[in-house]
Structures are given as structure tokens and as C-alpha cells.
């Protein structure tokens, strides 16, 4: 639809389009240029989405105060003159499409309407409040950068761009959401990322048909390979360095406006067991920590099931002295071990959830209350055994070691599945459950990449960065699972050992 010539038609049209919403601001004023008759004009924008300071500096001041002081009469038409000689903003567009104007206003731009012209200027004077950049909440590190994404997508793009000053880094912006029209950005490095992968991401995003995308979590669930699985096949992170590292590995990132979490595809189980810090600390420390982490993930989802199966099915497998003390502590308990374990694991989950929901100052008391209830009162009241408290504490601690929150969710859920399997069939059930789980993990894919890569299918080269991480000078190539276009990331050739020592000696 085209705009009308008369300004009051246009204003009426816009007000009707926005259903006379109260946050729509229509600022009317007159333009009185030398040599031209006075015309009425208006700025139309949403309150709060634009910077008042900029409107004054870039639009109102030049038009109302500076332009009228011109001595010579202008010979061009008013719109062109204002656009080219008066306005001092950075970016504006001229359009006569009414729908485009509506969209622009919704995006946070300012529409300048002038009487007698059937086109409008849309001025990019966005300026809304957002959170400042803070340190990451769920992926903290000791060594390494402390900034994390915020809700403003432009800032997030800036955080990535600052790390990768590469002309090949591309941000593709699209709008998703029939009503929300939310900004979604696909980020990749053009000569590293596999083209098919980028196309696949684009294709899946285009198919998303939702009315609004409030967080990247919406998109994640709409484009993932397997919605059935308790495991996530799309990685989310709030760390810009993690995204930058992913991009140079040949992965594709998806940023969503108003979401401090970026999505990374493809991802594997292995990739989610890595923390950014692994690459910042020296390799012996990184290897040690990774080993601990893999052991921890095993502890986190097997221990309660193992406890149940040993205590209720195979007490002969526990060393005699330990068996005696476990039996002694369980003496007189009202519940079978499965119920005991279930009660404790559920109360752990309750504490965890309560800890997240409670406001900060009260949140700390939940720790004390929970610790007292679980650790002491439940034992002395004879509801659970102290061994069970140890088991629960172990799983809780181990669960927090898993660096990706989303992945630890998957393990948390499957832990209950294993507990049920163990309570039916003991160790046999536990092994069956784990086999089913392994089979399930092996069927998962993330944008065509097997979830268990590089272990299954076995990829010896990618194993260099899995449970172990070799020193940086041995990681000369990018991981293979992303099928990257440019496999090398360090110039080939051996680093001579001790070369730094020698050069220091010469000084």
C-alpha cells in the first residue's frame, strides 16, 4: 500500500494501524524554510524505543532552528533538501510503502512525514535501555574473558566481531515470528564453515513458523534434529569466546535478539563436555580437568542406580566391612533403598530448583536449610541412611562439574531412568539401561553430525581434543566433524622444541 499525499491521512492511517496504542508518539511541527511555504510535518515513533537526545540533536534542532536561518531560498523540494542537507543522523531511508513504514516504526525507527509528499523518511535513531555486559552466570571460568552476551543483539554481534576481525565473518540477519518479527542472526565464517551446513541452517530457520521468538530456546526446539531425546543436539552458550571458537572450528552460530544465549551447530556430546577454560590453561592442567569431568559425568548419572542395585540386589559385591556398615546404617529404615534414593534425589532437585527461583538474599538460606534437612535431620530422624546422603552429595557435586547446563539436564533426567531400571533388575537392569542410553545417543545427530563423534564413528584425529587435549602446537587442524572448507588453523611445519629457550639465551 502506498502512502497518501496529505499528512493527516497518513497519520490517521498509522494510528489506525497501531490501534491508537498509547505508546505511539506523534510529534507534529511545522517546517518553515526560506523561500518555501510553511508545511506541516510529523515524527512518528514508539516511546522508549528511540533516543530522545538523538531526536533533538539530529532532527528537531536542525529543522526547527538551524534550517530557518538559511539566507538563500532553497531550490530543491523540501523532502530532498531535508534529507540531504538538514538531517544529521547516520542512517535513513526513503520509502513510499506504508507497510514498510509500519515495520520501521515497529523496529524502533522514527518516521518523518511531510505534508504534500507521498513518501516518508525512516530514521534509525534506536536507543533503548539494555543491561550492561556482565560476567557469565552459567559458564564461569577462572582464566579467560569474563564478558557474556546480553539481550541486545547488536552488542552481541559486536562482542563476536571484536574477537574475529576477519572480513569473512558474516552476520546474516533475518526476521522470524509472524507477530514478533524478531531479529535472528546467522553467524559464520564464509571460507571456513561448510556451505551445506550454512544452507541447512538457513533452510531450517526459514521453515520456523511461530508467532514470536522470545528466546533462542524457542528456535532451538524448532530446528533441532530430535525433539524426542532428553539430550540437546544444539549447544547454547552465553560466552562470546565460545562462539568465536566455534566459528573458527567451522560451526555456525545463531543469535536471537533479546536472548543472551547463542546457539551453536552442529554440536556433539564431546563438544559439550569442554569448557572454554580448557583451551586457556596449559595442556596438562586441561587434561587433568577433563578427565575429572568425564569421571564426574559418569558419577552424576550412575551412582544412585549403582547404590540401589548393589544394596538391594548384589550385597555380595560390596566389600565385607563396608557391607556391614551399610547394613548397619540402614537398620530400622522405613523405606526400601529405591524409595530412599528417590526421596533424596527428588529433594535434591527441589533444593536446586528452589535455589534458582528464590530471590538472592533468601536463596542463601535455602542452602543452609537444605543442608541441615538433608545432611542431618533426615539421618537422625531415621528416614534415610548416611550412606545415601553421601551418594546424593556425590551426584549433586558431580552434576555441577558438567560445563554445559543443558547437557547436565539430560544426564539428570536419565539418572532417574537408570534408577528405575536398577530397582527392577539390579546391575543387569543398570547395564541394560546404559546400553539403551548408549544406543539412543548413537542414533542422535546434530545437523547431520553424529552426536557421539569423535568416538562413534571413530575419528582418530578428532580424538586429540576429546577426553584429552593435546598441546596447541599439536592441534594444527580444525576438527573434522564440521566438514570445514579450510582444514588447517596453524601453518604446517614442526615447532622446534626449545626454540624459545635458545632465543632467550642469545640475548
Amino acid at each position: 500500500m502506498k502512502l497518501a499525499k496529505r499528512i493527516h491521512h497518513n497519520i490517521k492511517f498509522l494510528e489506525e494501524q497501531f490501534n491508537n496504542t498509547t505508546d505511539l508518539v506523534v510529534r507534529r511541527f511545522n517546517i518553515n524554510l526560506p523561500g518555501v511555504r510553511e508545511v506541516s510535518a510529523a515524527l512518528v515513533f514508539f516511546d522508549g524505543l528511540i533516543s530522545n537526545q538523538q531526536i533533538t540533536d539530529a532532527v528537531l534542532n536542525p529543522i526547527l532552528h538551524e534550517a530557518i536561518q538559511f539566507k538563500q531560498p532553497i531550490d530543491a523540494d523540501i523532502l530532498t533538501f531535508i534529507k540531504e542537507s538538514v538531517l544529521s543522523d547516520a542512517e535513513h531511508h526513503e520509502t513510499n510503502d506504508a507497510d514498510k513504514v509500519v515495520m520501521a516504526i515497529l523496529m524502533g525507527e522514527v518516521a518523518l512525514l511531510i505534508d504534500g509528499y507521498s513518501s516518508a523518511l525512516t530514521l534509525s535513531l534506536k536507543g533503548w535501555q539494555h543491561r550492561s555486559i556482565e560476567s557469565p552466570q552459567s559458564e564461569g571460568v577462572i582464566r579467560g574473558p569474563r564478558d557474556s552476551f546480553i539481550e541486545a543483539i547488536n552488542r552481541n554481534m559486536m562482542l563476536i566481531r571484536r574477537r574475529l576481525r576477519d572480513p569473512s565473518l558474516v552476520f546474516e540477519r533475518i526476521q522470524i515470528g509472524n507477530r514478533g518479527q524478531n531479529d535472528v542472526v546467522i553467524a559464520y565464517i564464509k571460507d571456513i564453515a561448510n556451505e551445506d551446513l550454512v544452507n541447512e541452517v538457513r533452510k531450517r530457520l526459514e521453515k520456523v513458523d511461530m508467532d514470536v521468538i522470545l528466546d533462542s530456546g524457542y528456535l532451538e526446539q524448532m530446528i533441532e534434529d530430535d525433539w524426542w531425546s532428553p539430550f540437546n543436539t544444539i549447544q547454547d552458550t552465553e560466552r562470546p569466546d565460545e562462539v568465536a571458537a566455534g566459528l573458527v572450528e567451522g560451526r555456525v552460530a545463531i543469535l536471537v535478539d533479546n536472548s543472551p544465549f547463542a546457539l551453536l551447530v552442529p554440536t556433539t556430546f564431546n563438544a559439550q563436555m569442554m569448557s572454554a577454560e580448557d583451551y586457556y590453561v596449559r595442556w596438562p592442567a586441561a587434561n587433568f580437568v577433563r578427565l575429572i569431568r568425564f569421571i564426574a559425568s559418569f558419577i552424576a548419572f550412575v551412582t544412585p542406580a549403582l547404590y540401589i542395585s548393589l544394596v538391594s540386589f548384589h550385597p555380595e559385591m560390596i566389600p565385607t566391612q563396608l557391607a556391614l556398615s551399610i547394613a548397619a546404617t540402614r537398620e530400622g529404615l522405613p523405606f526400601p533403598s529405591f524409595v530412599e534414593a528417590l526421596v533424596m534425589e527428588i529433594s535434591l532437585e527441589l533444593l536446586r530448583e528452589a535455589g534458582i527461583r528464590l530471590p538472592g538474599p533468601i536463596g542463601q538460606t535455602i542452602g543452609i536449610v537444605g543442608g541441615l534437612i538433608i545432611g542431618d535431620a533426615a539421618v537422625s530422624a531415621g528416614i534415610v541412611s548416611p550412606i545415601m546422603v553421601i551418594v546424593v552429595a556425590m551426584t549433586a557435586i558431580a552434576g555441577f562439574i558438567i560445563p554445559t547446563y543443558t547437557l547436565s539436564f539430560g544426564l539428570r533426567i536419565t539418572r532417574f531412568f537408570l534408577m528405575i531400571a536398577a530397582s527392577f533388575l539390579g546391575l543387569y537392569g543398570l547395564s541394560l539401561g546404559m546400553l539403551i542410553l548408549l544406543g539412543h545417543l548413537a542414533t542422535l545427530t546434530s545437523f547431520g553430525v553424529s552426536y557421539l563423534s569423535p568416538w562413534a564413528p571413530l575419528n582418530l584425529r578428532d580424538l586429540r581434543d576429546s577426553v584429552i587435549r593435546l598441546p596447541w602446537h599439536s592441534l594444527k587442524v580444525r576438527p573434522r566433524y564440521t566438514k570445514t572448507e579450510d582444514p588447517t588453523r596453524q601453518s604446517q611445519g614442526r615447532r622446534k622444541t626449545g626454540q624459545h629457550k635458545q632465543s632467550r639465551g642469545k640475548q
Partner: protein
Amino acid sequence: MTMKRNRCLVPILAMIILLIAGCWDAKDIDQRSFVMGVAFDISDTDDQLVMTIEIPVLTSFATQTQGAQSAKSLVIATTGTSVAQMATRFETRTWRELFFGHTQCIIIGEDLAREGILPIIDFFDRNPRVDRRLTLFIAQDKADQIYHVKNPLEALVSVALNQMLNTLTNTTRVVKRNFQEALRDLESNGDTVLPRVRGTDTEIVIAGGALIRDYKFTAWLSENETRAVAFLYNSISGGVITANVSDTIYSYAVRNAATDIKPVLKDDELSFKIKVKSEGDIIETYHKGSGGTTQFDIPKIQDKLNQIMADEIHHLLAKLQELHADPIGFDRLVKRHYPAFWKEHAKDWKEKVWPEVKFEIITEFNIRRTGILERVTVYEKQE
């Protein structure tokens, strides 16, 4: 459509299968009675068996504070005609299920063992939960009295017994033979040597061995004979051998010992070559009267040790031949090395061949260290 319905059905079916068939052997650890030790005797009054079990009193293991007053174990007994029958009879004494997964020892009384141990161990051999590292003992006199010994150091007699046997490193006078090894011996030819246990009012003693022949207790072996058995079983892990050389007693501590037995068949005449090699230290010299000695004649002491052990082994083998018993398993060696000969003589091995077999025993004791005593003169061997 059908696919979708199947998807829902699978977990439901799985649950039903599990709920109906599963859990049949689920029993929580506190609902089981840990039978730590079992003893078998023949009743004095009639011909029935007596089964005595030792069960820990779990509450006394819960906290350390309760201390010595409360009893740590309960010893109860029942009579019957078979082991399984007696084991089920305990259900009328305790609601907890008897659990043999942590049984530490089985003690069989002398009188019962003379009649045969096979029917007793059969029950335990069949049970997959029984820990094969438990020890089978033969008790001098009655077996149940062992569990009534009050030893303030030990909470559970059976644990103490098994621990004692497994941690022995300084005596050679006991044969370490766990259930698994004993079963292997027994199933091969029915003969073995089991450790002997003896109880007084306040203490338990493990010393010497009980010779089992054809699953029946046949004779006691003295402590020195048991030592020879231990060498032949290759189960020496330490211990002291004393040698008297010119009025000084030298104590030789065995650090390691290895025995190699080889059958030799020459002109249809079977003999065995037994080679015992050992390394060890002199840990004491004991000289009667004043002075003592700082002088070591190592070759002489070694010769003496060689002679002592060769004599002991000879003596033991002679006794075994006399009793027609082959607990060491010489027959297995013959079978392996000379299958043709074995085929011919398998039937009359114990009765005819074994008692006539000759032995060549080579002992080689090496003294490696003599301690850090000063002023030690070591004589070189003179050629």
C-alpha cells in the same frame, strides 16, 4: 498410525514385563542376615547334623560409641539332616533371609569331617553368591565352640579367622588354601590339605593342617609337615625357618620361595624332581651363653637350611604315600606330562603307583641379607 500406537505400547509393555517378572531377588541389604561364619558338627545325642551360624548384630556396627557392652554377634544353631534343610530352619529364628554372600569361613568338626565333607560343601559350591575366597577349616574337636570363643579384640570370630589366615606373612605353619583352591583340589582327586583351627576359652589358634583323602578327613599334619605342604603348594609368603649351626640358632626369614615339580618317566619308572628355591634374610642369631656371634658362614647356614627343608619334604611325602593320599596333585602333573602312562595307571594311582613313586628333592636356599650389625665377618666359601 500404527507406528504411533506402537511407540506408546513399547514402554508400557516393558513396564509390565519388568513389574511382573522383575525384582524377584530384590531384597534390601538390611533385610538379610549376613552369615559371617558357619560351623557343622554331628549331634552328640543322635545322628543329626548341627549347623551353627554367626550373624553380626548390625546395630552394634552403626556407631563406634556404643562400645564393648553390647554383643557384636549372635551365634545360633539348629539341627537337621541336610544343609539346605537346616539353612531354611533358621527362618523360624530370624525374619531376615540368610545371606551367604559375605561368609568368611566354614568350619567342619573333626568327627563330621571323618565321615566326609562333600555333602557339606555341596550347598556352598552350588550357590553363585558365595565368595570363593572364604576358608574351609577343619576344627579339632567340635566346630561350634570356635564361635563361642570370647576374644575382646575381635567383633566377629569368622572375620578374625579369615583375616588371620590371609594376613599371615610370618609363619609358614599354616596352609593358605581358600575355598576355590580347595575345591579345585577336591574336584580333581578328592584330596587336599585344609587349615586346622582349635579353640580354647579365650583364643583361637590356626596351626597345622588336616589331610583330606577322598573327601574324608584322614589325619592331622603337624606344623612342620604343614610347612612342607605349603612349600609344595607354592603358597609360601613368608615365615621363619631356624637352623642350628655349631650351637648358634640362625633365623632365616623367607622372602620368597618357588617350588617346581617335574615328573620324570624313565623305563616305566615314575619319579618326581622337586626343586625348591628360596631367598631370604638372616634376621637373628641366637647363641646360648655369653658372647653371641657376629660371624656368618653363609654357605654353611644355607647348606643346613637346604638339608632341613629337604628332610621335611621327604618326611611329608613319605607320610602321604603311606596314607595313599595325594593332596598336592602329583597325579595332575603325570596326566599332563605323560598322558599315555596316566591312562594306563589312572585307576590304581592312589593305591599302587603313588606309594611307590621316588622323589629327587633339590633345595636351594639363598641368604641375601644379614642385617646391619657391625663387626660382621663373612667367610667366603672355600673351594
